[in-house]
């Protein structure tokens, strides 16, 4: 390995470590500021709690053996809702992309559903499905699904037209165009949609 290569790799590593360091520092700064503002009475600990209070509660829950049970239940709900949200979102986006007429028909309804305050539907869902894991997952799906469908679908629509023309000139059928071009070209949007989906799922659960 040449000296220049070694220098370059070192530089890349330092950059990665510094980014991680700054992220860690930001978290520490936030927690420190929060704790400090509670200590000096600037913010109310009863309403906003404080990092030290949260740690105390966690220790107490661990002692009572409750902590991991709750974590596991929530984690299970998040994972199921996240996977379901992505699978259904991805499938929904493919259906909309392949059936443009249907996409045009559904467009105003999807926009309407997306802007609906879904959290407000929480009590209704509990009445219909009961206070159980099913309700939590449905709530999370209500929140993450439309966002997932619309994000991935818009990603598909951004496939550059010259690639589409190329595939047309090669007599590619619509599934070849979808799997060899549209989906791989939307890779970054799909990853962005996963990130959005996990955030939405956590709100839902």
């Amino acid at each position, binding site marked *: 390995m040449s000296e220049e290569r070694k220098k370059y790799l070192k530089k890349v590593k330092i950059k990665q470590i510094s980014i991680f360091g700054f992220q860690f520092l930001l978290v520490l700064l936030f927690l420190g500021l929060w704790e400090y503002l509670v200590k000096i009475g600037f913010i109310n600990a009863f309403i906003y709690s404080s990092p030290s209070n949260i740690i105390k509660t966690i220790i107490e829950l661990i002692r009572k053996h409750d902590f991991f049970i709750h974590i596991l239940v929530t984690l299970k709900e998040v994972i199921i809702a996240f996977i379901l949200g992505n699978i259904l979102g991805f499938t929904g986006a493919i259906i909309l992309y392949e059936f443009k007429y249907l996409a045009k028909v559904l467009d105003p309804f999807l926009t309407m559903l997306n802007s609906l305050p879904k959290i407000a539907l929480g009590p209704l869902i509990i009445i219909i499905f009961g206070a159980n894991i099913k309700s939590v997952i449905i709530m999370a799906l209500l929140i993450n699904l439309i966002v997932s469908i619309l994000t991935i679908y818009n990603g598909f629509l951004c496939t550059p037209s*010259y*690639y589409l023309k190329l595939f047309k000139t090669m007599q590619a059928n619509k599934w070849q165009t979808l799997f*060899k071009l549209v989906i791989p070209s939307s890779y970054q949007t799909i990853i962005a949609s996963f990130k959005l989906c996990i955030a939405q799922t956590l709100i839902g659960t």
Partner: protein
Amino acid sequence: MNNLLDISKLTKKYQTKENEIVALDNISFGLKKGEIVSLVGPSGCGKSTILSIIADLDHDYTGTITRKSHLKYAYMLQNDALLPFLTIYENAILGLKIQKTVTKENLAYVDYLFKLYKLDEFKNNYPNSLSGGMKQRVALIRTLALNPDILLLDEPFSALDQQSRLLISDDVYKIAKKEGKTVILVTHNIEEAITFSDRVIILSKRPAKIKKIIEVNFKNQYSIYERRKDANFNYYFDIIWKDLDTNE
């Protein structure tokens, strides 16, 4: 029928909410096997539309297109359109995969072209690490790999710098002549049309009509550089220039 392809009274109209646009008006010409024909004309006159219709990508027209037998077409576009997530080799054989014609012979031909264009050491590179000229050569390999009867070139050199443009158009010219490929080139560039073709078809502005068809005869057929030096080059240039000029 001596021609590989005959186009007769081809007319194309586009319908929009506002009005009807006539893009092509009564276009007729034939194409012999192994012939290189250029279509020149003002921007937006419908040159690319003719290619789409010939390649069977657009069926909404009137007139007749008579083909000698089942013809295979391959396109080369203005943009190299190499997929950034595939290596250049994977890009080159993409058409073969799509058409399910990945055979030993076809892969051997792709390997031959990679060697011919000195790209074999970059086979596993991704397009972003290549120059514009190299990328367009990969696009040329992808086009030739399909072993088409007719090569449809839709301004494939226009996005390149002058040096790459000359080199790659010469590559295409030489391989087309060597392998007896029939070629239709759409171009804005008069010099390119003259040096590249056996015939130049001059189209008017929209709706495109054929203004003139010029037979190009040069003594040297083997290189576009040599054709450029031919005494007749300026003569052809003047004829095409005048015909294009009167359109503007």
